[in-house]
């Protein structure tokens, strides 16, 4: 593991979600939420190939989509999705990064209202949100939300190549059950894949279609110049009713509660992984267009035409294994499907609908990943299987054991297991890309001090100082191997709120410093070269209290420390601050 990037959860190692600068990233319409449940990272694309600019990732519990920069490997933006719950069929990107989508797994009243749960059927909706991506900066904006029937929208994938302009969502609970769902949502032999012509809806919206409705959702953005996040509460969202855009949305009947909804690299085959069926449903995009033209429909659901199964179905892969969940592809016409119940990955030919190879995994595999899997050009040498259960695979560590993923070589006819590796988890899904692409984009090594626009930043030790503003004490502090400036501070009083604004003056690769203060009710900070970060401390007792560097920075790391003197509430001791006996900057001529 090279790096853990905090996105939706606080990370005390890096101070993410603890520092004053990053706290706004975790703001939502429900207030500050310290954690998230991420599922599906997806890398931005240009012309159907992963380009390594950004990673998008969803949060299921408090519906949100985040964007991570692959230059800094930091979260740059988080947008909340209103009218949604269980943001699961997310965050997949179209082939030119036009949109990243977010779909609702738990249908809810739309807009929310006080009503009996038992009246769910026909009264709940599932929002499918299309977030436009700014091609320059990657900023996201909810362009429109489609107010779909109250099914569960489980997973999705964009069309590509010939099917570019369409998006496909798998559904379950077309029964619209609201209780004992494991039984009641598993009654229909077929549920649907929803096929959405987003280009058509985009045009409808461009021509003034849709309705702005009140909503409340947070949009949090990170400014790399000030190293500070801002949270803005948005007040409305554009909603599109399917009935208003005829010819844009269809349902494709698909074997029982399909989970993964995967599109092959050519864009022709749409695969429903029939979780509760012993079959894989393969739909044909060409047949779908023909069926639409011929109006080969089998009634409708809430006004949305249901295409006749035979009119859209390319074929069925029968009995390939038990519990198919997800399929990814190579460039040679094969699909690789995970089977949760029979704990295996099965390689099969899509055209022939024939199984080529199967390999056990340990155990109960969920997603699998081939780099560039959601693109026209998978990099098909390797495949990673991500398992949900490990049991006896590794050493016993009490009731909770490690998580596991497995690396396969898929360049040959047979899949070859190369490596089992324990990991933290669960390793739900992954996005892969050749390291060369990331390296070519020149990941950031340091932040230049001259570009630091943090309002409390300093450019040199001479600028470090301590300023009292009523009960607030602002420390403009610097750090460089291997000392803080100032490192002796007096005049702080019990009841003050002390802000440590700390700038790392280093301009060398891989020389972060950390800082922590005894008694501060927050995490440490880990500050990269050229950056300024802030934590607060409210001293409760008089005394002389030390702070120190928390990241092993140099041979003199242990000596990188300082003291703050805290006097009683009514003390008259003025603020003073020194480094080696002098006020910083004054000893220099």
């Amino acid at each position, binding site marked *: 593991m090279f790096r853990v990037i905090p996105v939706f959860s606080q990370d005390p190692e890096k101070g993410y979600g603890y520092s004053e600068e990053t706290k706004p990233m975790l703001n939502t319409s429900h207030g500050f939420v310290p954690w998230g449940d991420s599922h599906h990272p997806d890398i931005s694309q240009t012309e159907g190939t992963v380009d390594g600019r950004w990673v998008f990732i969803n949060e299921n519990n408090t519906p949100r989509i985040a964007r991570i920069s692959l230059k800094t490997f930091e979260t740059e933006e988080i947008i909340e999705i209103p009218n949604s719950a269980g943001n699961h069929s997310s965050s997949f990107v179209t082939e030119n990064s036009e949109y990243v989508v977010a779909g609702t797994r738990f249908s809810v009243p739309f807009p929310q209202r006080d009503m009996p749960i038992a009246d769910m059927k026909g009264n709940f909706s599932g929002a499918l949100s299309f977030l436009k991506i700014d091609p320059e900066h990657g900023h996201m904006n909810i362009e429109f939300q489609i107010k779909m029937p109250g099914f569960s929208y489980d997973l999705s994938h964009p069309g590509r190549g010939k099917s570019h302009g369409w998006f496909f969502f798998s559904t379950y609970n077309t029964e619209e059950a609201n209780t004992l769902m494991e039984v009641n949502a598993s009654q229909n032999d077929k549920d649907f894949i929803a096929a959405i012509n987003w280009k058509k809806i985009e045009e409808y919206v461009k021509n003034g279609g849709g309705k702005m409705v009140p909503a409340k959702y947070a949009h949090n953005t990170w400014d790399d110049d000030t190293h500070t996040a801002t949270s803005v509460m948005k007040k409305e969202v554009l909603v599109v009713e399917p009935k208003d855009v005829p010819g844009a949305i269809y349902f494709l009947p698909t074997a029982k509660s399909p989970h993964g909804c995967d599109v092959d690299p050519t864009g022709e085959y749409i695969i429903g992984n029939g979780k509760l069926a012993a079959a894989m449903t393969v739909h044909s995009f060409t047949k779908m267009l023909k069926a639409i033209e011929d109006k080969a429909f089998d009634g409708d659901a809430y006004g949305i035409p249901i295409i006749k199964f035979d009119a859209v179905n390319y074929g069925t892969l029968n009995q390939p294994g038990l519990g198919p969940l997800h399929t990814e592809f190579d460039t040679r016409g094969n699909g690789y499907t995970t089977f949760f119940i029979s704990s295996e990955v099965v390689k099969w030919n899509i055209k022939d609908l024939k199984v080529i190879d199967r390999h056990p995994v340990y155990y109960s595999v969920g997603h699998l990943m081939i780099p560039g899997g959601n693109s026209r050009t998978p990099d098909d040498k390797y495949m990673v299987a991500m398992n949900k259960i490990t049991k006896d695979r590794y050493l016993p560590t009490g009731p909770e054991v490690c998580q596991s993923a497995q690396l396969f070589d898929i360049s040959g006819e047979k899949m070859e297991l190369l490596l089992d590796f324990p990991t933290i988890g669960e390793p739900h899904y992954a996005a892969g890309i050749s390291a060369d692409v990331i390296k070519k984009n020149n990941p950031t090594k*340091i932040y230049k001090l001259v570009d630091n626009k943090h309002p409390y930043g300093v450019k040199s030790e001479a600028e470090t100082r301590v300023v009292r503003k009523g009960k607030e004490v602002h420390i403009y502090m610097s750090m*460089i*191997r291997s000392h803080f400036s100032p490192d002796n501070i007096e005049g702080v009083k019990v009841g003050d709120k002390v802000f440590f604004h700390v700038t790392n003056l*280093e*301009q*060398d*690769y891989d020389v972060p410093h950390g800082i922590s203060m005894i008694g501060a009710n927050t995490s440490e900070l880990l500050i990269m070269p050229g950056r300024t970060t802030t934590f607060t401390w409210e001293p409760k007792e008089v005394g002389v209290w030390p702070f120190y560097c928390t990241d092993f920075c140099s*041979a*003199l790391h242990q000596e990188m420390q300082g003291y703050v003197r805290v006097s009683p509430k009514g003390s008259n001791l003025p603020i003073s601050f020194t480094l080696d006996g002098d006020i910083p900057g004054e000893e220099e001529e």
Partner: protein
Amino acid sequence: MKKSKLLMIIGPLLLLGLFIFPLWNITLEAPQYPIPLGMDIHINKFADTHEFDIKNINLMNHYVGMKYIPETIPEFKIFPIAIIAMVVLGVVIGFFGNYKWFLGWFVLMSVLGIAGMYDFYLWEYDYGHNLDPNAIMKFTNPDGSIMGFQPPLFGSKDILNFTAHSYPLAGAYFMFVGMMMTFIAFFVGKKEVKKK
């Protein structure tokens, strides 16, 4: 124009390369610096080989009490003037002087060059030996004397965990070639006179 005069005019002009290219480079290699730290010495300034190298050399050296590499030194004012003067003098000699003057210019330039090198050596010596008495880490030689950290004048040398390299850069080659041309001009000029 005579061959010797041409050589004598072009030779000193090549010295102007010193205003474009660095004269010398000192590079410090260590395992934890996969991209080594380097400083390019021009006739009028110290420059980073990679951005922030000098800052990082200073940070590294402060542990053993070495002074910061100064922003500028008096030589950076003198060197450019001396070079310009020598170029003008050389070109004037090229046009109007005889071959004996050519040698005179070469000898003068050589003396100045050696003086420059000696001056640089003195600075390096001071830089490597004039250490802060409060240095964080103090090292002694096997004989008990205080260890110095002077980089080599020319060549490579191990200093604690670093290997220091000190080699000429393009500016120095321009100067060397230019000076050699004036030296050759002397012999060519001498031959031309004899032929007459």
